[in-house]
C-alpha cells in the first residue's frame, strides 16, 4: 500500500537548543530526512577577530552555558601551542579536574533531565520527580558537585573566569579542596548507584555500523589532550584535522555538517568508551563487566550508560587529583606573545571540540575556527534516524515515529547552541 507520511517535529523537546526534524516517507521508505537546526547563527568566530587572548577565554565560554570549560580548554591549548608554552604538571592536573566537574554536571543533567523521562514513561523531569524523588535528588547532588568543582577553579560554574593562558588566575585554597574532597567519596558511591539503577532500564536495541572518533592518550582516558583516532584506523595529530575532516553547509541547517573522509561519524561518550574502555580504572571496568555491559557497542541507546560510567570516572579522577593536591608556587606561567597558528582539541562532554587560531605578533586574533561536537554529530544523527526508523517500522503512526525520533536524537545529547556558534558570512554590497 502506498502510504505517504510527512512527519514534522517543529521543536525537538528535551535537547539543548532549538531544532526541528522534517521527514517524508513514501512507498515504505524514507524519501527525505532533515535535522533542521534553526537556532540563529551567532558569529562567534567573527567576534573574536582583533581580540586578545584573555578576551578569547571570556568570550568563548559564552558559546555555551553547559560546556564553557570545554571551550576554554580547547582555546587555551591552541594559544599555548603558538606561544610555545608547556603547562606545568599542576596546571594539567587542575585542567583535568576542571573538566571532570563539567563532564559530571553535564552527564548528570542529561541523564536525569533529558533522557530518563523517556525510559520511565514521563514527559518531563517535573512529572518524573514525584515518582522518583530520591533518584532525582541524587542526580541534582551530582550536578551541583560538578558545578562546585568548576567553581573551585573558575570562581563560578556559569561562564567561569579563572582560566588564563598558562594556567589559572589563582590556586584553590587548601580548605576549599578539603571541603570538596569530603563530598567526593559519597558522590562516587552515588554514581555507582546510578549505574546499577540504570541497569534495570530496558534499552532499545538498534545496533548498526558507525565510526567512533575520539581523542587518544597513551596513559589516560582522554579529556584534555592527545591525538585524534577512530575505530577504523584513523590516528592523526590535532593539526591534521583538516586533512580528513570536512565541513559543509546545508540549506536547511544553521550548523555546518562535518564528515570524515566523506562519511558521518560519532563523537561523544559512547565513541570514547568504544575506543578507550580499557583505559578506565580497573575498578570501574570490573563493575561495568559485572553489570553485563560490553564495549565497544554499536547500540546508540547505550549512550545513557556511557554517560553514567564517565560520571564514575570523573569522581574517581577528581578524588585522586585532590588527594594529591599541593598548593603551587604559581598558578600560571607567564607567556611571551608570538604570532602564529595554533590548534587545540579536547573532549567536551558531548565529544571532540576542535579549535584553530591565528594570532599576530601582538597576540591579537586574526582568524578563528571552532568545530563543536554537535556539528560533527549532525550527519551521524541523520544517518542513525534513517537506519533506526526503518528498523522501528515506518508503518507506525506519526506520533510513534515522532516520539522514537526524538529518543534517537536525545542519545546524542545535542548542544544546538554550540553548533550554531558561527556561519560563513559573505556580504555582497551593491
Amino acid at each position, binding site marked *: 500500500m502506498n502510504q505517504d507520511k510527512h512527519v514534522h517535529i517543529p521543536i525537538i523537546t528535551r535537547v539543548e537548543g532549538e531544532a526541528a526534524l522534517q521527514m517524508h516517507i513514501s512507498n515504505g521508505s524514507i524519501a527525505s530526512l532533515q535535522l533542521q537546526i534553526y537556532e540563529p547563527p551567532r558569529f562567534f568566530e567573527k567576534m573574536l577577530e582583533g581580540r586578545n587572548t584573555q578576551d578569547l577565554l571570556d568570550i568563548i565560554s559564552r558559546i555555551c552555558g553547559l560546556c564553557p570549560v570545554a571551550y576554554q580548554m580547547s582555546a587555551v591549548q591552541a594559544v599555548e601551542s603558538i606561544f610555545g608554552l608547556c603547562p606545568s604538571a599542576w596546571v594539567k592536573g587542575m585542567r583535568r579536574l576542571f573538566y571532570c566537574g563539567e563532564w559530571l554536571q553535564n552527564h548528570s543533567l542529561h541523564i536525569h533531565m533529558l533522557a530518563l523521562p523517556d525510559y520511565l514513561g514521563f514527559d*518531563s523531569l517535573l512529572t518524573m520527580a514525584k515518582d522518583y524523588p530520591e533518584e*532525582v535528588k541524587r542526580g541534582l547532588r551530582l550536578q551541583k558537585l560538578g558545578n562546585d568543582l568548576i567553581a573551585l577553579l573558575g570562581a563560578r560554574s556559569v561562564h567561569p573566569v579563572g582560566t588564563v593562558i598558562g594556567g589559572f588566575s589563582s590556586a584553590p585554597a587548601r580548605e576549599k579542596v578539603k571541603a570538596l574532597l569530603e563530598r567526593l567519596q559519597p558522590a562516587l558511591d552515588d554514581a555507582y548507584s546510578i549505574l546499577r539503577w540504570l541497569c534495570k532500564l530496558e534499552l532499545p536495541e538498534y545496533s548498526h555500523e558507525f565510526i567512533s572518533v575520539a581523542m587518544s592518550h597513551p596513559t589516560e582516558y582522554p579529556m584534555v589532550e592527545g591525538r585524534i583516532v577512530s575505530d577504523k584506523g584513523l590516528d592523526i595529530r590535532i593539526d591534521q584535522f583538516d586533512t580528513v575532516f570536512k565541513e559543509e553547509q546545508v540549506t536547511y541547517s544553521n550548523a555546518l555538517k562535518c564528515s570524515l573522509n566523506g562519511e558521518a561519524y560519532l563523537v561523544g561518550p559512547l565513541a570514547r568508551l568504544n575506543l578507550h574502555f580499557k583505559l578506565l580504572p580497573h575498578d570501574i571496568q570490573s563493575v561495568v563487566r559485572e553489570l553485563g555491559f560490553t564495549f565497544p557497542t554499536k547500540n546508540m541507546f547505550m549512550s545513557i550508560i556511557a554517560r553514567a560510567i564517565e560520571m564514575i570516572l570523573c569522581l574517581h579522577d577528581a578524588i585522586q587529583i585532590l588527594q594529591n593536591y599541593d598548593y603551587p608556587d604559581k598558578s600560571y606561567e607567564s607567556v611571551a606573545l608570538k604570532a602564529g597558528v595554533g590548534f587545540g582539541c579536547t573532549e567536551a562532554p558531548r565529544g571532540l571540540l576542535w579549535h584553530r587560531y591565528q594570532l599576530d605578533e601582538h597576540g591579537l586574533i586574526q582568524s578563528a575556527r571552532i568545530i563543536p561536537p554537535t556539528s560533527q554529530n549532525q550527519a551521524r544523527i541523520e544517518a542513525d534516524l534513517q537506519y533506526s526508523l526503518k528498523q522501528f517500522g515506518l508503518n507506525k503512526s506519526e506520533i510513534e515515529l515522532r516520539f522514537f525520533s526524538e529518543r534517537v536524537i536525545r542519545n546524542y545529547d545535542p548542544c544546538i547552541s554550540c553548533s550554531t556558534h558561527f556561519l560563513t558570512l559573505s556580504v555582497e554590497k551593491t
Partner: protein
Amino acid sequence: MKAIRVIGIGSPIGDDQIGWVIVDKLRNQTVLQSQAKIDFLVLDRPGLNLLSYFEAFSHVIIIDAVVAHGEIGKVHKLTKNDILNVPTVLTTHEISVAAALQLGEQLNMLPEFISLYGIEIDAPQQHSSLSTQLINSMNQSVEVIAMEIFNQL
C-alpha cells in the same frame, strides 16, 4: 539556628544583578541588623542548584529581577502558590527560578514558607551596572521588602 534565608539571585549583566544589590542593602537595614534569625545569600544563576540552599530553613525569601512589562522598579510579590502556578518549561537552555521551585515542590525540598520578590526591570541589557531608573527606585523597594521580612520574624 537561622530561620529565614534571604536569597538574591542574579547575574553580573546590567539590571539582572538587582537581586544581589537589594540583598546587600537589606543586610544593612536597621530593622534587620542583628537579627540572628536571618541569613543573607547571593547566587549567580543557580539553576536547579537553588534547591540545595533551602535545607534547614523554614522560610526562604527570593529576590530576583523579573520582566513583566510593568513600571521599572516595581516590586511584585509572589506567594508559594503563585510561583507553583507560573507556566514553565524545564529546559537546559534556561532553568528559571519558577521551574526550579516547581521541581522542588515535587521533590518535597521546599521550605514551609517561600516567597519571591520580583523587581521589574527592562529587557536584558549588555552593560555591567544598574540602570539609573532602577537605582532611583531601589531604596523604596528595599524598605518595602525589609519591612515585610521584619514582619515575618
